[in-house]
């Protein structure tokens, strides 16, 4: 093969797929710029505030802290998406996982650091089991996974809400929540003086593990090929049911871990609705969609979204541009990316 041909092959394989993403992001920023002009603001000022708010000084740590749960929830969405299936129930798995972690961290009779470990494991196990329940709904009862995951979200949130209003209720707080978790059973700060806690390390390990499994193992191979052609995977001998179950267990475990990290690392108690209010599962699903479920791309998209969101909060404070504009930006990017079938594949 000539050098030119080799370069071309390399470009089509590795850069080609990125073009639509870059294009969609550019269009997204363009649309937001136009909106800024329309309401009488200089787009350059807006974008500068947005970027400063995301990475300047202490804001950078805010972004990192936000990226931890967001990357986690993105991976929880990306693993099923890689195989072409969707877990819409990550919120329920997140809430149950967080609640389970809080209960263990508060009441499990063991030394602090053991309690912390057991709490994290319990969060993952509960998230995984709940996701497995949804998978079972599809495998054994024929309920489409889209429905079984989504609808199981409400009982999960409801159960946690009930618990913190009744037996787990801390009477000293105004909002329904558990008592505060003892300092020793918390995830400690990673960079003192910032909101970045040891959860960052846990999520980094998870991300590396997911990327490794995806790229280098037989399990990842089967997952990827199912995403490309499910009939082919079945024909080749992949057990789709077992795979669905495995994928959902992994996805639910990560969602449960994210809930545990939020409870043990930053909120120190389970408060009703506090885990799902930031809508990390939706942002995560969007980030995973942006990358088509490919884990490295998903992580990058998630970090980008975390920066956008932190920047959006700062922008709202400093130049009084509502941060809903950053949500507009995210949505426009996804919409244009979804259109790529029509725009980019035209001969």
């Amino acid at each position, binding site marked *: *093969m000539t050098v030119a041909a080799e370069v071309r*092959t390399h470009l089509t*394989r590795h850069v080609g797929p990125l073009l639509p993403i870059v294009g969609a992001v550019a269009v997204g920023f363009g649309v937001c710029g136009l909106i800024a002009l329309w309401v009488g603001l200089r787009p350059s000022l807006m974008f500068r505030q947005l970027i400063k708010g995301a990475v300047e000084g202490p804001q950078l740590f805010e972004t990192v802290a936000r990226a931890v749960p967001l990357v986690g929830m993105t991976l929880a969405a990306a693993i099923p998406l890689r195989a072409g299936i969707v877990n819409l129930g990550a919120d329920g798995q997140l809430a149950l996982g967080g609640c389970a972690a809080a209960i263990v961290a508060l009441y499990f009779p063991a030394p602090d650091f053991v309690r912390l470990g057991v709490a994290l494991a319990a969060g993952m196990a509960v998230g995984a089991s709940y996701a497995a329940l949804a998978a079972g709904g599809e495998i054994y009862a024929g309920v489409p996974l889209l429905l079984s995951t989504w609808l199981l979200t409400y009982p999960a949130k409801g159960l946690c809400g009930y618990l913190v209003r009744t037996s787990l209720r801390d009477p000293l707080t105004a909002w329904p929540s558990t008592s505060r978790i003892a300092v020793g059973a918390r995830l400690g700060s990673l960079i003192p003086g910032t909101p970045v806690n040891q959860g960052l390390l846990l999520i980094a390990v998870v991300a590396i593990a997911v990327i490794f499994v995806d*790229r*280098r*193992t*037989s*399990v*990842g*191979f*089967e997952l*990827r*090929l199912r995403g*490309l*052609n499910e*009939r*082919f*995977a*079945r*024909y*080749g*001998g*992949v*057990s789709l049911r077992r795979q669905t179950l495995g994928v959902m267990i992994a996805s639910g475990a990560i969602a449960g871990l994210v809930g545990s990290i939020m409870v043990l690392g930053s909120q120190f108690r389970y408060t009703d609705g506090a885990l799902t209010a930031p809508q990390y599962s939706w942002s995560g699903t969007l980030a995973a969609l942006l990358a088509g479920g490919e884990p490295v791309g998903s992580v990058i998209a998630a970090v980008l979204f975390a920066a956008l969101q932190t920047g959006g909060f700062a922008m709202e404070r400093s130049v009084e541009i509502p941060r809903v504009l950053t949500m507009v930006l995210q949505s426009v990017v996804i919409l244009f990316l979804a259109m790529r079938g029509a725009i980019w594949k035209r001969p």
Partner: protein
Amino acid sequence: MVHQAFKLFESLSVWENVVYRREPRRGIFVDGARARAQVEELARRHGLPIDPKARVANLPVGVRQRLEILKALYREAQVLILDEPTAVLTPAEVSTLFTVMKSLAAAGCTILLVTHKLNEVMAVSDRITVLRDGRVSERLVTAETDPDEIVRAMTGHHVTLQIPKKPREPGKVKLETEGLVVEQHGRRVVDDVSLQVSGGEIVGIAGVAGNGQSELIEALMGLTPIAAGTVSLDERDVTHESVAAHRAGGLSYIAEDRARTATAATASATDNLAMGFHRTPPIAVRGLLQPQAMRTWARSLIERFDIKIASEDTLVGTLSGGNLQKVVTARELAHNAPVLIAEQPTRGVDVGAIAFIHAELLNERDRGHGILLVSAELSEILALADRILVMYEGRIVAEFARADADEATLGLYMAGGARV
């Protein structure tokens, strides 16, 4: 046009299906009462008894077909095309349909019946046009012809591909089915099929497409549930086991739809050729993929099967039909499995690739492996098979040793002619 697969709103009633898109109106509303009366009158006039208020989901297939015909008549169709209309009907329903067809024709309607069944052609048609390989091969008048002449026109006189074959040395029975039944929508699409494939022989299944061959093969691979009967590999019962278990038990499978089933178009040749080998050395060691081994493996298969492809990284969706079929053949033969199922292994591929694939299949047989060959091409069956089974309406209706088979006899059985 009445399609072979009905196009009806199952959750709506009969009259709603009939008048859809041509509803009698009263202002902006559909005039239901008038529509029901019209449908009732239409059904009575054409002798197609049906309850206009019945829900389609609750109707048997014979009545659904009547409804399809009513839909066409409501639109005052002059020409009615029926595509394999009897495929889903019981014998009693078939004879009712024929009565209706004759009375419609008598009333001035033109009916175009598409079928592969000789007895139907002889029973209801006035004139016959025979299609072969997309061309008209004969035009006949029913009253002046007989089934033999139609079969000759259907099968033609191909020059049988002569491939030098070694004498058969059949070994042990490797694949065996007993009384296999597959049901779809309450119909037996595979009906009481018993067959055996031994090492060192090619067993051909001849038949017009759609007579249960695909369903039989899917059942043999564990891709579709089996209603009754057994499948065994090397005397081990695998009837209700997974595809993976079938493959592990010694089956490999060239699927008929190479683009949708047997490959992933948006994956590279490396990935496509690794499928099925991706859990065992040298491709994977303890669950870890070995990228270098994957490439070497792909390159060696590409070279051995002379696949025209830019590199092993190229997406297989860009390949021609012949080269894509070679990718599938290469992978499935590389399994070195005791039994290979080859379903339409050369459909739509160029002559060079056909010769190559045929030679590879014979080579596999001479190495002592059994092959179950399904093909709609009689010439292919006659060129390769040692034994030939004919499938018609889900059943094995005849079995021949290669020496006793010729195109005319096979064609007659394929068209259900032995029952005329």
